[in-house]
């Protein structure tokens, strides 16, 4: 270890002060930049030797080789006979080999996100956003993308169970009848527990149940269901209302702990709207501004022009100061207040779900005072069928269960045994209920404690309906018959009402026909994926002068660390824990996969003795120490993780992990730690008083992908990997990014041409791209939120394998597209930058000449083709790739055997096997399909007719793909933007993927 490693955090600022350029960095260890780290960095797969831990001796080697030689003869056997099974009666409009798209919606937290589902011969294979749906606008997030794996997941529950034994649905109905007969006279013992419901049909059915069984009750519990936002609106306006934000109309946005671009039912729409005011182009004169006041660095905070890390409890005081009813705790608060005042009617203050209702009420009051309500914030009736204080609703249920007043509990969806507040002890309470039935997609914790478990259908398997964030209704239609004998909530409720054989289709259809639909409108709704004009009308929320009394002190009195509990960004409240795509998706900001950790800031890390000096950079981002956390009398041991920019004196944990049942991925491979034990009904989002102590446990392995396939840290700042400027600087010098590029080119040792000139001297044969297409991509780093939608979309489109936690630790993750995270400045509150890195599709690609078998070669369109069947796995190409975008199948990662996963795959993309290199292809299957259609019709391909999976998913339109030869295409125009720059231009690789530099709009009144 070098001496340099003994650098301490206190030296950071000095070190940053030393360098000439604004220095960008990716991780704390990179900032330390020890020699050991440099060695580690330069090794491409530093841990690959670790795979052969036990070693192979000479005799074993000979045996293995002998066996391989003997088997070699068998490989050459003929391909097995293959069958073709045509239809008996082919459906109309179905062309074998051509996908069909159907509109539907995915329900998350009760609210709909519109989807278009690609179906190949009756098999749904890919989800896209529905451009007509107000919450999606054609974009999709990782939950939507990964739901296709959720559909086929072989570990989904497949049979009705009675006390764990296999049973049938009709036996369940038989057992239900005596219960219902008893409830007909007095239904007070009959309880239905659901998650948040916006479905008009389900709501109608529940009302029928309540009417039919007098005294019966309906309870709702959605663990991450925006409880505080709902109650905050009631606190502000005296009744439940649904605020709809119009970020496209806002010039100044203040987030009070809100991750509005990363979470919530409308985050896709809000991200698109917000970023519409940030597309800095040549001659731009305005740009919106975002202040993020938060504890845990979120995606929203990462895009902010100013981010202020504060403890969660301090936000209320800041909100009061913004409203002007309390003194400003810092000068920047007054500056924000002034900025809001200067943009009356053009500002938004939005509070986060983790903030108490009072903060939400304050945010509404600020918007009211600034005249934003009615302009940038509008209100509608609640989209929920029956908005309610769900915590109280669940409390009532638990109280009644404990008092023996509940004779039958029907749980429709959800997993309350796992995710109800810890102090409710829901599981013990259910033991007092003589009849418990649970409808759920997995045989999970709640199912284990129910008498009856009924497998639930996936949203792609059943008819239903749901409302979007603005109330727009989507009729959800199934793409496939239930794969695993699932039943939907409509069927169970139908059985309660008495319609035993009422199908979900009949239920939904007859509801809407009773509301005036006819065959023509019904078909149009199904086709469009939305019911036009069904958005709830805008109403006045009713002003309230009352300012809520202070609920929390600014945290000064409380001792210990303040803990904030948030839903996990990739597996949400735990419902997606069995989805391996989501488990392996690097969490935004932390870039950790397969785990949850206790997230703290650098200062607290030092306080508890977890100093960077202890950490070996060679293994950093691979393992971490365990800490004991004591909170509300509950003690838990879990790994700790330092995130630059996290508020001091506070910690954040994501709940959703720690599943006991519900599939091997959820309960074994990606188990993590159960944070619900910290979730109490009086502090759902956490609170003060936690004690964190470092333990001497052996290090805990962590699969964090940030330092994988890294570009040399020296290049990041000094060679302009990340380019950024303030909006004022941009206006002064729009070409700031190119200047760096020109300088870089001038300094490059690879050429002696005049700076900025294209380098003519090269070893590559000259290609003429003018006759064909020249595909290219531009990624706008200003509007990228690092949300991972593109990564998941790529995984679904290109059949990318999951490798598992151990392999991720060995840096063998297969994602073709990664999102690099960079920081700049002080580790206590750095600026964050996101950079999606697909294959650059270099015109003079370094990977091509080094392949000994010609498996990677140049196409006439300028793509770097990767030919799997030629690849012999030398990995020279990956070694020679300066961008580190190639991924090698070290093992047989693709699951060839599980029958359930076979129909999931995109039939237009090869499933890769062991020993083969793979990488981003610019979705060449889509390119070829579009070219073929255009050629057949003898027409050019219009810009925007197709795009890559990542660009299609992107909520903020940060990724734009198209033909550079078409001068009117969006991508060609973006390439002309002054902020357009390439990565490592001095290498003369001429990448087809380029970036638009990040432009931020800081308030000149606020320093740093």
């Amino acid at each position, binding site marked *: 270890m070098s001496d340099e490693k003994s650098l301490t955090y206190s030296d950071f600022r000095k070190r940053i002060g030393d360098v000439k350029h604004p220095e960008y960095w990716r991780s704390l260890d990179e900032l330390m930049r020890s020699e050991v780290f440099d060695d580690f960095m330069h090794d491409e797969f530093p841990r690959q030797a670790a795979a052969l831990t036990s070693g192979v001796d000479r005799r074993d080697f000979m045996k293995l080789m002998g066996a391989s030689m003997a088997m070699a003869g068998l490989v050459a056997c003929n391909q097995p006979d293959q069958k073709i099974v045509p239809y008996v009666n082919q459906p109309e409009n179905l062309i074998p080999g051509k996908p069909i798209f159907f509109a539907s919606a995915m329900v998350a937290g009760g609210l709909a996100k519109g989807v278009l589902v690609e179906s190949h011969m009756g098999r749904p294979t890919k989800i896209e956003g529905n451009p007509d749906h107000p919450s999606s606008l054609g974009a999709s997030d990782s939950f939507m993308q990964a739901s296709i794996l959720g559909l086929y997941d072989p570990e989904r529950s497949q049979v009705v169970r009675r006390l764990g034994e296999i049973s049938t649905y009709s036996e369940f109905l038989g057992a239900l009848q005596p219960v219902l007969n008893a409830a007909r006279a007095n239904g007070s013992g009959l309880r239905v527990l659901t998650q948040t419901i916006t479905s008009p049909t389900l709501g109608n059915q529940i009302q029928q149940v309540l009417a039919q069984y007098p005294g019966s009750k309906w309870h709702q519990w959605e663990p991450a269901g925006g409880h505080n936002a709902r109650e905050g609106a009631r606190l502000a306006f005296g009744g439940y209302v649904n605020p709809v934000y119009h970020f496209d109309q806002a010039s100044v946005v203040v987030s009070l702990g809100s991750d509005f671009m990363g979470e919530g039912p409308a985050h896709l729409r809000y991200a698109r709207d917000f970023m519409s005011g940030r597309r800095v182009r040549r001659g731009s004169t305005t740009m919106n501004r975002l202040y993020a006041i938060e504890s845990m660095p979120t995606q929203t905070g990462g895009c902010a022009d100013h981010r202020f890390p504060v403890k969660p409890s301090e936000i209320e005081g800041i909100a009061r100061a913004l409203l002007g009813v309390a003194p400003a705790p810092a000068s920047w608060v007054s500056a924000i207040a002034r900025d809001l005042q200067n943009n009356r009617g053009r500002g938004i203050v939005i509070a986060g779900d983790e903030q108490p209702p009072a903060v939400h009420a304050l945010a509404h009051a600020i918007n009211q005072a600034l005249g934003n309500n009615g302009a940038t914030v509008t209100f509608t009736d609640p989209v929920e069928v029956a908005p309610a204080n769900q915590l109280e609703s669940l409390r009532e249920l638990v109280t009644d269960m404990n008092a023996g007043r509940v004779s039958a509990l029907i749980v429709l969806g959800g997993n309350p045994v796992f995710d109800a507040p810890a102090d409710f002890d829901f599981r013990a309470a259910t033991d007092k209920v003589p009849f418990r039935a649970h409808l759920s997609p997995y045989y999970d914790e709640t199912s284990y404690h129910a008498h009856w478990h009924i497998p639930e259908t996936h949203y792609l398997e059943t008819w239903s309906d749901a409302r979007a964030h603005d109330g727009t209704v989507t009729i959800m239609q199934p793409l496939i018959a239930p794969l695993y004998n699932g039943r939907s909530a409509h069927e169970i409720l139908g059985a309660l009402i008495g319609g035993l054989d009422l199908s979900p289709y009949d239920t939904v259809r007859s509801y809407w026909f009773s509301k005036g639909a006819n065959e023509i409108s019904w078909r149009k709704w199904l086709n469009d994926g939305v019911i036009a004009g069904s958005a709830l009308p805008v109403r006045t929320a009713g002003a309230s002068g009352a300012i809520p009394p202070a609920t929390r002190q600014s945290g000064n009195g409380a001792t210990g660390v303040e803990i904030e509990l948030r839903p996990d960004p990739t597996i949400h409240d735990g419902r997606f824990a069995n989805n391996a795509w989501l488990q392996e998706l690097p969490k935004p900001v932390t870039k950790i996969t397969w785990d949850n950790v206790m997230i703290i800031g650098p200062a607290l890390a030092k306080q508890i003795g977890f100093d960077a000096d202890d950490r070996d950079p060679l293994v950093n981002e691979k393992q971490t120490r365990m800490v004991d956390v004591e909170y509300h009398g509950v003690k838990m041991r879990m790994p700790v993780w330092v995130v630059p920019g996290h508020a001091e004196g506070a910690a954040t944990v994501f709940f959703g992990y720690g599943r006991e049942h519900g599939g091997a991925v959820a309960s074994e491979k990606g188990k993590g730690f159960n944070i619900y034990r910290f979730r109490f009904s009086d502090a759902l989002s956490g609170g003060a008083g936690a004690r964190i102590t470092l333990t001497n446990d052996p290090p805990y392995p962590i699969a964090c992908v940030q330092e994988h396939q890294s570009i040399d840290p020296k290049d990041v700042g000094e060679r302009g990997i990340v380019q950024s400027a303030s909006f004022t600087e941009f206006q002064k010098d729009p070409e700031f990014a190119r200047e760096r590029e020109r300088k870089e080119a001038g300094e490059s040792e690879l050429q002696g041409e005049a700076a900025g000139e294209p380098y003519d001297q090269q070893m590559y044969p000259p290609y003429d791209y003018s006759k064909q297409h020249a595909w290219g991509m531009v990624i706008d780093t200003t509007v990228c939120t690092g949300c991972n939608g593109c990564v998941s979309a790529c995984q679904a489109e290109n059949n990318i394998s999951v490798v598992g936690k151990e392999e991720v630790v060995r840096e063998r993750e297969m994602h073709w597209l990664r999102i690099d995270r960079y920081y700049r400045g002080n580790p206590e509150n750095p600026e964050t930058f996101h950079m999606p890195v697909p294959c650059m599709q270099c015109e003079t690609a370094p990977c091509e000449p080094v392949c000994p078998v010609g498996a990677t070669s140049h196409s006439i369109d300028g793509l770097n083709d990767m030919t799997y069947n030629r690849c012999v796995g030398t990995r020279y190409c990956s070694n020679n790739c300066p961008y580190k975008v190639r991924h090698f199948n070290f093992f047989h990662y693709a699951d060839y055997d599980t029958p359930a996963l076979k129909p999931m795959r995109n039939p237009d*993309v090869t499933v890769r096997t062991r020993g083969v290199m793979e990488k981003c292809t610019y979705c060449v299957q889509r390119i070829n399909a579009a070219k073929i259609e255009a050629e057949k019709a003898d027409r050019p391909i219009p810009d925007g007719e197709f795009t890559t999976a990542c660009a299609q998913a992107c909520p903020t339109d940060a990724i734009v793909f198209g033909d550079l030869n078409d001068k009117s295409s969006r991508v060609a125009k973006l390439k002309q933007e002054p902020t357009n720059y390439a990565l490592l231009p001095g290498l003369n690789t001429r990448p087809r993927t380029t970036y638009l530099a990040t432009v931020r709009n800081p308030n000149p009144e606020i320093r740093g």
Partner: protein
Amino acid sequence: MAQIFHRSANTISRVTIFGAIFIAGFILWVIGGIVRSPYFTNQGIEREQIVPFSHQHHVGGLGIDCRYCHTSVETSNFAGIPPTSTCMNCHAQIWTSAQLLEPVRSSYATGRPLIWSRVHRLPDYVHFNHSIHISKGIGCVSCHGRVDKMNLTYQAMPMTMQWCLSCHRAPEKFVRPRNEVFNLAYESPNQAVDGPRLVKEYKIQSFTHCSTCHY
């Protein structure tokens, strides 16, 4: 020093050295021959089918157009295998009691599909699109041979990559007028003139880069 080897060792060593080259060459030649042989390519091997369907009878004899059954050949990558209902269009009225057609009738009656053996199989890493080849004037016969003369269907061509490339490199040798694409008996009177003319007229590009087929 005594001579260790007999003089004949010179000859033996020469023969061995030359022989090694020839033997290695011979082995390679044999392997090359085997992988191109019908044993590997399945060329010319008739497949047993659930119903011994004769293209010779239906196409050659009755003159049914290819597209009557292979409906998606002009629109999709997959030409399509006819559903049972297509067979029953005629066989509901003719040969209604033929023993050979029993599987067809029972399929139609029970709704269970007929299961055919695939004759033309490309590896999963090859993506072939029928429609673009049809649209560019490549006749069915170029790849499938004289199907109208096949009793049981077999693969007429080797379907190796080398064979694909023979046309991709020189499409003018195979292109035909679009209205003759489905005419299996068509032979150009003067391909040397017609070929280059049609290549120009149909804007046929000679694509040989890998991602044309492999992705």
